[in-house]
């Protein structure tokens, strides 16, 4: 074979740069993101053992015999009502849903108003919305401890102005402070996730054609009606994206309920953390994670579709 044909052959069988560009990130995400979930699934069927790592193997190879042992007790333990896991899932969903709704109620007016500013004002306002999320998440949660505590300056102000009494009579808090109640968890989630709500809403709202509203006004629609009939339906994609970005991670949130919520705020992220770190029950922690994934699967798929349409440039 002459040199050029060898070269040509080599060029034909070595993957081109196209496959390198696809292959490297693909392989990385498969090995470090997809396969780990399969391993979690596998270990959720293992039995707790006093060993390192603390679980039994699923496949037992004995001479020519391969035995697959699937231990369902972890899932049975999760499913039993008296163990409280189901209550933890339900309360996580409830807390995340309420917090998402609150974030939408705070974030929508902000995004709406910012989208109507002149262009230079928009950029500055959006930078101010995003800037806090560049500082540490942990520190932003921590900042609220000092505010919501009864002994702090703000806590005393709330006590004096009767806010604490009002909250207590509404049944939102039991003691004399907001800290360590579900209400504190809601405040923490709204505070930390607000930029994730405002950002997709703003990107959507800023693209709206103002002439549509003008036409509605010309035809005699009241501003409120024009908003409900035109702006709100058009911003559906932004609302979905924002709510998913807040709700899905909030269901599994650990830091906020741990620092602000107090012992009564039951959330599944805390349950998983405790099974893993305090009880060192890796198989049960894996089963908790798998059940959480099943719960979040549909929202995650919806989010993926919305997000990919946006990435690939198709307008939703």
């Amino acid at each position, binding site marked *: 074979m002459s040199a050029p044909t060898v070269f040509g052959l080599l060029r034909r069988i070595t993957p081109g740069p196209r496959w390198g560009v696809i292959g490297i990130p693909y392989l990385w995400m498969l090995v470090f993101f997809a396969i780990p979930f399969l391993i979690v699934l596998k270990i959720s069927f293992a039995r707790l053992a006093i060993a390192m790592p603390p679980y039994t193997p699923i496949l037992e190879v004995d001479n020519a015999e391969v035995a697959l042992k699937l231990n369902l007790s972890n899932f049975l333990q999760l499913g039993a009502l008296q163990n409280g896991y189901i209550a933890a899932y339900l309360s996580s969903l409830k807390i995340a849903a309420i917090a998402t709704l609150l974030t939408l109620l705070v974030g929508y007016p902000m995004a709406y108003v910012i989208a109507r500013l002149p262009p230079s004002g928009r950029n500055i306002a959006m930078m101010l919305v995003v800037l806090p999320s560049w500082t540490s998440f942990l520190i932003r949660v921590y*900042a609220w401890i*000092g505010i919501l505590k009864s002994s702090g300056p703000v806590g005393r102000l709330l006590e004096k102005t009767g806010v604490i009494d009002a909250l207590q009579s509404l049944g939102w808090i039991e003691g004399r402070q907001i800290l360590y109640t579900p209400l504190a968890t809601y405040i923490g989630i709204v505070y930390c996730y607000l930029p994730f709500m405002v950002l997709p809403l703003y990107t959507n709202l800023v693209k709206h054609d103002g002439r549509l509203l003008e036409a509605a006004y010309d035809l005699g629609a009241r501003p409120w009606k024009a908003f409900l009939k035109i702006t709100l339906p058009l911003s559906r994609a932004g609302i979905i994206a924002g709510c998913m970005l807040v709700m899905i991670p909030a269901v599994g949130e650990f830091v906020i309920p741990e620092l602000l919520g107090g012992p009564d705020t039951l959330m599944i992220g805390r349950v*998983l953390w405790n099974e893993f770190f305090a009880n060192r029950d890796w198989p049960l922690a894996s089963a908790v994670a798998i059940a959480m994934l099943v719960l979040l699967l549909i929202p995650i798929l919806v989010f993926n579709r919305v997000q990919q349409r946006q990435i690939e440039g198709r307008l939703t």
Partner: protein
Amino acid sequence: MSVGRARWPTWIILGSGFAFLYLPVLLLMVWSFNSSRLATVWAGFSFKWYGELLRDASMLEAAWVSLRIAFWTATASVVLGTMAALVMTRMRRFPGKTLFGGLITAPLVMPDVIIGLSMLLMFVSLGDLFHFQPKGMVSIWIAHTTFALAFVAVVVSSRMAELDKSLEEAAMDLGANRIKVFFLITLPIISPALVSGWLLAFTLSLDDVVIASFVSGPSSTTLPMKVFSSVRLGLSPKINALATLMIVIVSVCAVIGWWLMYRSEQRRRLDMQLALQDNG
């Protein structure tokens, strides 16, 4: 969108929104100068806690560990994330593209505890299979890169979607191959997105406590892990001082970065206008 008639609701909404976002942090910063250990009373202005913070060797050590991990996470995830963005925006359909898209967007919303647990179990299984288990900083770096690259991919691909494809096509018509087009045309145009992607990945890594707690093992402690363990015990004046320092550094960097990007954008617009005028 047009500017509405009524101005005052705009200012009320913006004012209360930004007050909500900024007052808690400002209050924390003011309180960091309180000389009393108790968070309940103001006992006078002092830099005492800053001094104590800088004398805390384990805190400084943790900060150094975190900064190194964040640097390498940001660098790796910009490279991988840009590749992923190219695949998502510039490549024809190929078998497995839908799965790839799912793998890139799922980390954006996946709860930390799940990522942390699955990463750790994967590292342990690697140890079982190959007798090689990444530990400490390396495992944190891998875990952080995996979720940060998803964020970089989104930032970069949104920039690429805006990019005028005719520039790339023109270069290709003039005989440049795809690699040359990428490095000479695409890369310079998307470079602001690469910078903001790098900074985003850096802060994401510097911010994470949950995933690092799962995968780190006993040998390395990051700054957020250190902060978390002391915050769990309640308010600490040293953490107030640390928080203030971090907020000041981040804000200054963010404002400078924003200004640089704003200026380069202005210059690019001016260049484009001049080029158009020359042609006309």
